[in-house]
């Protein structure tokens, strides 16, 4: 009796959870709650908790955007692009060159930001096309080599002293455009400490009542903007994926010859998917690095390791699923970048770990005498390096145990209409059409 009632309670919950929007919302709220608890436990003030949650949200959102962009290439069309960092660099550098103030060093063109952003996306798309047109005729492995090479060529070119008048060379592009939030709230957007505009005055004084600084307000509003960009990119790719276009891309991933023999011009589809993905990577590079709280356009920012983080995030979420991409990006960014230092602080505070051995040997020797504290201290102090080892282990386990991804489904249907239930028009079972319309994958 009690069992049936619990099932009755759980059934609508399970149905709600099949909805993609609910999944994403639950994931984000869970991350916020966990990090709020971290901050609260460590005695951060309102401002501290806000900036912690804001940092996690920002990383989760930018990872979401770039993982979505990679998903259309790799998850849908099976195009193995490991030059993600390079395409992000093109977007970020281009917007900096176009929209930075001409007075700074290196000088920008001072064009309005929307033109700069559009230019950055177009430049990334064009570089993607230049790479794709010859390379897409190659097999997957060779495409991977070409893309990683292009990514490095882009980085080294920006790094080169020969172009340092335009790119800033190894020191990077120090003169970055101001974000729309700064332009809206500050009288002199180039200096974060300047006088507020009338709108800024209202917002800042409201925040000040909760002890939140002007600086935190700007970054928080910018992060909300990034979340909106993520939403738009998600909706765009969700529509592109759940359509005949996405269906052909998946067919190419499964078997390109079969797709050709059904009359699909696969080369054309691949080029379009690659260009779309590269353009969105450029957009991700812009919102992530060209402005906002993590603004830093230097050649070091765009090293290949960032590409591999993005791949890990996509694999965690489940390649081939847009929702999985957003979830994977959020989970990866919070777990890898923000959670370990929090956990370290909490453990250190709770257990009073004070030992601080200089190396692994010094940490291991006391174990013989039954003293585990030095090892614990060593692990905690080196959590920044160790988390990458942990990520590697997680990746190996995931690929072995859950090749379809932890959260998403590679097998998401690609059609403009639901296909999951019996949708025959003449059988009277068509009401299943409506039930499946919210994308429920009941037959998995």
């Amino acid at each position: 009796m009690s069992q049936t009632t619990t099932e009755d309670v759980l059934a609508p919950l399970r149905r709600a959870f099949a909805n993609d929007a609910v999944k994403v919302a639950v994931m984000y709220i869970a991350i916020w709650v966990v990090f709020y608890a971290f901050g609260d436990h460590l005695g951060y003030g309102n401002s501290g908790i806000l900036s912690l949650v804001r940092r996690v949200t920002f990383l989760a959102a930018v990872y979401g955007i770039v993982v979505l962009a990679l998903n259309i290439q790799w998850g849908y069309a099976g195009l193995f692009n490991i030059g993600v960092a390079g395409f992000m660099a093109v977007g970020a550098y281009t917007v900096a060159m176009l929209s930075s103030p001409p007075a700074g060093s290196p000088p920008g063109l001072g064009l309005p930001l929307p033109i700069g952003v559009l230019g950055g996306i177009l430049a990334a798309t064009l570089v993607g096309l230049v790479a794709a047109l010859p390379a897409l005729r190659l097999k997957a492995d060779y495409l991977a080599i070409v893309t990683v090479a292009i990514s490095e060529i882009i980085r080294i070119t920006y790094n080169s002293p020969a172009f340092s008048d335009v790119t800033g060379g190894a020191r990077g592009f120090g003169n970055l455009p101001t974000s729309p939030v700064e332009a809206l709230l500050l009288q002199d957007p180039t200096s974060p400490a300047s006088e507020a505009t009338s709108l800024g005055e209202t917002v800042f004084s409201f925040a000040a009542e909760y002890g939140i600084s002007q600086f935190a307000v700007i970054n928080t509003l910018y992060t909300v903007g990034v979340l909106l960009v993520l939403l738009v990119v998600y909706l765009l790719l969700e529509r592109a994926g759940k359509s005949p276009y996405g269906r052909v891309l998946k067919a190419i991933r499964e078997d390109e010859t079969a797709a050709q023999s059904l009359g699909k011009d696969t080369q054309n589809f691949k080029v379009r998917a690659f260009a779309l993905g590269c353009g969105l990577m450029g957009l991700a590079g812009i919102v992530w690095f060209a402005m906002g709280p993590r603004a830093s356009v230097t050649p070091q920012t765009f090293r290949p390791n960032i590409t591999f983080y993005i791949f890990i995030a996509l694999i965690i979420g489940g390649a081939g699923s847009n929702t999985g991409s957003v979830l994977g990006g959020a989970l990866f960014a919070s777990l890898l970048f923000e959670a370990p230092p929090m956990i370290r602080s909490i453990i250190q505070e709770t257990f009073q770990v004070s030992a601080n051995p200089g190396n692994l040997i010094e940490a291991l020797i006391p174990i013989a005498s039954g003293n585990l504290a030095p090892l614990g201290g060593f692990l905690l102090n080196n959590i920044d390096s160790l988390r990458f080892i942990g990520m590697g282990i997680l990746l190996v386990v995931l690929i072995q145990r859950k090749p379809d991804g932890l959260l998403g489904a590679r097998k998401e249907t690609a059609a403009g209409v639901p296909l999951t239930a019996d949708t025959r028009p003449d059988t009277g079972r068509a009401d299943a059409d409506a039930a499946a319309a919210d994308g429920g994958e009941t037959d998995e």
Partner: protein
Amino acid sequence: MSEDDAPGVADADIPDDVDVPEDVEPETMDSDVEESAKTVPRSVPLRVEGLRKEFGGITAVDGATFAVEEGSLTGLIGPNGAGKSTTFNCITGVHEADAGDVYFRGEEISGEQPHDIVERGLVRTFQIARQLGEMTVLENVMLAPGGQQGESITRSVLPGTRGRVVAQERELREKAWETLEFFELDHLATEYAGNLSGGQRKLLELARALMTDPSVLLLDEPFAGVNPTLEEKLLDRIHDLREQGLTFLLVEHDMDLIMQNCEHVIVMHQGRVLDEGPPERIKNNEEVIEAYLGGEV
């Protein structure tokens, strides 16, 4: 659809149904089939002339020349390595032939891309079924039709045009269900194609090819690995479709099957056409028997 696009052969075209009183469309193999073929000249949708394809030092196809008649079920046989599959690949643009021409409804199609050839109405299936494993059966079938508006990103994404894409998808889904019912695959519609049995994959491949709305179908060993019951079912479907006016060229190793079902048989050996004609003639050809039973393969 492409029958209308070929003005050169329109006058010789025999309509799909029995509109022309002289021409009795053959339903089974009997002797008057050849009679009618002789008396009424039938159009030739597919013609191959002097086709040649080399791989390194091996000449897989060495000057093959043959023609496939409208509405026929033509068999293409030959021992392993005779060049049947390579011929298929050259006709459908998967390989580029080194020499020779392929004509489809009077127009030369040699060197065209596979997808262009499909658009003309010449569609093939593969010896090893190429199901798209991580897509459902219904998705597999809905992939095939040409002219899908939603294959454009902008039309799929923009609010103004998305409605039309969805409407077309709804029509496609209806047609897909009909096709799946025709092949008795409807109970598997939501199953992933990778989970189907070998025989079901062959059925799916034929269903998918049919969704492209072809006028000539090239089937590469459609019965290989298919159990007798399913083979019977597949054959029934092929005969049904032929009655609706489709033309078939069929590669097959089962001689009995070819002799009982095809009205015209082409024998290939070492890249050349050894002989062609009605089954009776092929059965009694010494060279053919030699090629299959003895000689170097």
